[in-house]
């Protein structure tokens, strides 16, 4: 009989891990709390650095997990160890016995309201990066009304001691440049500005995207944080920022401000995480065994981690981790 492997989370990490585990002859079971697989990436329109449609990747992943046992709209309510491994209670009353557990629970997007000075939820023309992706997918957002001047704010909820997140969220820099270019495609007459602290173009083709953003798309990248946003009499946004390269404060009136929200640990898994005895690291994400050779292991026997539940990661990083966790689980089962 094939051994059951419980995978919590049906996003990129969960789907890819399931695909590989199935190929390795095990029986992965995905428990996904929402109504469909795909996670955050399914809400994205196109992917950096090459503007590849996210749907293509997600569709292929969905195709790969066709034979996998998937429980949608389902959550693990309780989990215990027993002689055979783990016994997990689901909120639909079902009990799953599994030899190993893979936590692929992903991230929450930083709630932009918490950075009140940027005015999200207060001023009409402040939106999040996720909402902009939705606009790209559907073409609909009543707040985006032929804007003439658009600003992007990097590091919203990341590298910011004041909100308690000191880590870099890794993907927002490249996402911002990608979205800035896309905005120029939709609104060619608009002026587009991005406000960054550092541009961390760490991956293949990312630096090229940065050059293209400036040369081909005429997006202006300003090094400096936006400190506050207010509204003028006409309902346009007035932002204050500092251009740290010129060493001067600046004030600018915009029609649309996009906040590049960072990744935070998915808090809905906290109870199960505690039951499994997995601690958080200093950034509040799940702690893995070590960051080099044990990145998919947790400190608990039989519990594995993959994807953005341990730190912010790009999609290629996540897929890589999902594949490696499959090998770890396979070795674990075979050596038992």
């Amino acid at each position, binding site marked *: 009989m094939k051994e059951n492997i419980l995978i919590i989370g049906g996003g990129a990490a969960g789907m890819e891990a399931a695909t590989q585990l199935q190929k390795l002859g095990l029986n992965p079971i995905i428990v996904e709390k929402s109504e469909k697989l795909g996670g955050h990436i399914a809400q994205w329109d196109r992917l950096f650095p090459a503007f590849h449609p996210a749907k293509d990747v997600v569709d292929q992943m969905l195709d790969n997990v066709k034979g996998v046992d998937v429980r949608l709209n389902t959550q693990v309510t309780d989990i215990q160890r027993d002689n055979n491994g783990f016994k997990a209670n689901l909120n639909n009353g079902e009990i799953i016995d599994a030899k190993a557990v893979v936590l692929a629970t992903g991230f929450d997007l930083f709630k932009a309201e918490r950075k*009140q*000075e940027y005015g999200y939820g*207060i001023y009409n023309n402040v939106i999040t990066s996720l909402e902009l992706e939705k606009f790209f997918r559907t073409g609909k957002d009543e707040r985006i009304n032929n804007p003439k001047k658009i600003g992007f704010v990097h590091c919203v909820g990341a590298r910011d*001691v004041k*909100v308690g997140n*000191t880590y870099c969220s890794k993907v927002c820099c490249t996402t911002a440049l990608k979205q800035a270019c896309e905005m120029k495609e939709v609104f060619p007459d608009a002026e587009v500005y991005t406000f960054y602290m550092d541009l961390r173009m760490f991956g293949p083709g990312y630096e090229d995207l940065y050059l293209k953003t400036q040369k081909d798309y005429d997006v202006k990248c300003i090094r400096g944080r936006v400190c506050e946003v*207010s509204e003028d009499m006409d309902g346009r946004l007035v932002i204050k920022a500092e251009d740290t390269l010129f060493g001067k404060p600046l004030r600018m009136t915009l029609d649309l401000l996009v906040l590049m929200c960072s990744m935070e640990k998915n808090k809905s898994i906290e109870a199960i995480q505690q039951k499994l005895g997995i601690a958080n690291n200093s950034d509040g994400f799940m702690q893995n065994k070590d960051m080099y050779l044990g990145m998919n292991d947790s400190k608990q026997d039989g519990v594995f981690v993959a994807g953005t539940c341990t730190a912010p990661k790009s999609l290629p990083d996540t897929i890589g981790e999902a594949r490696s966790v499959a090998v770890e689980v396979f070795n674990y089962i075979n050596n038992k």
Partner: protein
Amino acid sequence: MNQYIFHPFVLPFVLGMAFVLTYCLVGLVRIIAQLPKDDRKKLWRSLVTPKTAWANIRDLFGDCLFHVKIWKRNPILGYMHSAIAFGWFMIIVIGHVMLFTLKPLQGVEVEGFARTFTNFYYPIFYKHFATETPVFAFLMDFFLLVIISGILIAVVKKIYSKIVGVKRVTKFGFADNLVRFALWTIFPFRLIAEKSNIMAFWWLYSIDLMIFMCMLPFTRYMHIPTEALFILLQHAGLKAREPRKGYNLAQLYSCPSCGLCIDACPMSVNDKNSGNTSAYFMKMMRNGDSEDAKRIAETCLMCGKCVMICPVSIESCDIKWSQRAATPYYINSDHSYLDDCGCGDASNASNCKTPSVVYFAGCMTQLTPKIMRSMKQIMDAAGDDYEFLDKDGGICCGRPMLLSGKVAEAQAMIAKNTELIKKSGAKKLVLSCPICYKVFKDEYQLESIEIQHHTQYINELIKNGKLKVNKGDVNYVYHDPCELGRAFGVYDEPREVIENVGNLRKAKSEKELSICCGGSLGSFNLTQQERDEITQNSVNDLMFNNPDEIVTACPLCLKTFAKKSPVQVKDIAEIVCEKI
């Protein structure tokens, strides 16, 4: 000399007494000499002004002898301290009164200079040299037993402080422990000596007194003589100036290191940081341990809870502030922009009508636009004509500069703001930020312009019927911002406002006991993690009665709590705005 008039065992006491009296006299002259001329004048005047003279008498008895403030906080500790201090005081007083009725044991009377000398120690050792009337004998025994009962509590407190409701006690060095031991044994030795007349105990009693008095200036017990002077200086209206001179020196030596501030301090949530509390700061300042004292002065959140809880009313925040002011921090400040600053709201500039209210949001409120927007809606709904002074950005109120001890830089901003506010012609200034409120109240000379925080302003609008609100059924808990509550006692207005729009639940620690949110501008060097611990502790305290929302009246508290709160955190203006 006859052994019934003199015995060598009185010598240690006489020596100790002579030393401590000389020391205190020199100290007194030194402190008064260190006072600036104006302050000295204030002091002399206060001594003859009936109002302050009465306050002096009242507090010298109430605080030095009866410790009313400790009784109010913790009756057991109040009894402990009063038993020892008041009991001792009574023994000294009755002893001296008794001098007139004492009968020498062998009928040997002394006259002239010798009489003066014997009077010096007779009341202290009278049972060895004389007999007294039964009434006095009873009174002396009674007060001696009262003192011993106080010492018993002190011993229990030392062994297990939680019994008397104290979690953490001050840790002392050798000198303090030695003097404490001497103090504890003085009275039992006296009791045994008096009842048995064994010479050894008279010697022990006298030597104990000598140790106590000779060491007193170098230990926390120096608070006994200094507190009396401090009360006079405080009533004279003196303020902290130089960190270790004059008035501050009197404050430093008045601190009894009782440690009540250790449990009160928000930093004590982390045991490691309980060493940063005022009790230790004062000790370091006294000992001239300037590096550590400077560090603590910079670490303090300046929430004022230790000042509020202090049984001696020592203004430790002011001492820390004067320590900061004496430190030459490098700040590259350029205030030339102040000259070009316009005069506020452009939209109202064309409007020639003088506004009745001028609203100053302040930098922190600019970063919490929900508060600003709510205030605008409230003022519009109330129909008050107002000028929004810093709508397009304004000048800082000056408090952050003051907190770093930079008086001149702060005054530049204060002067410009004063000019702008007066120019508006409004009769009332409304502020949304308690940080601003404190500096406007303390430092600005706005003459007839009334200064209100928006909690007071909104409460007034509701009370006089200008603002109509609906009562909802949300359960709120209110957090008292340090600079509104403890600093100015604004406790009732926000609570009245909240009861008009919903239900008010109590926090575990309220009003003057409210715990700092941890976000205070006061501290220069607390780490984010240390601040987070304070915030979490404060949130837990607020969540005590499971409220639906946390309400505060300070934009900085709001932002700080938002990080850690399990429920929504709102400003009082926001919840009122929701119910218009």
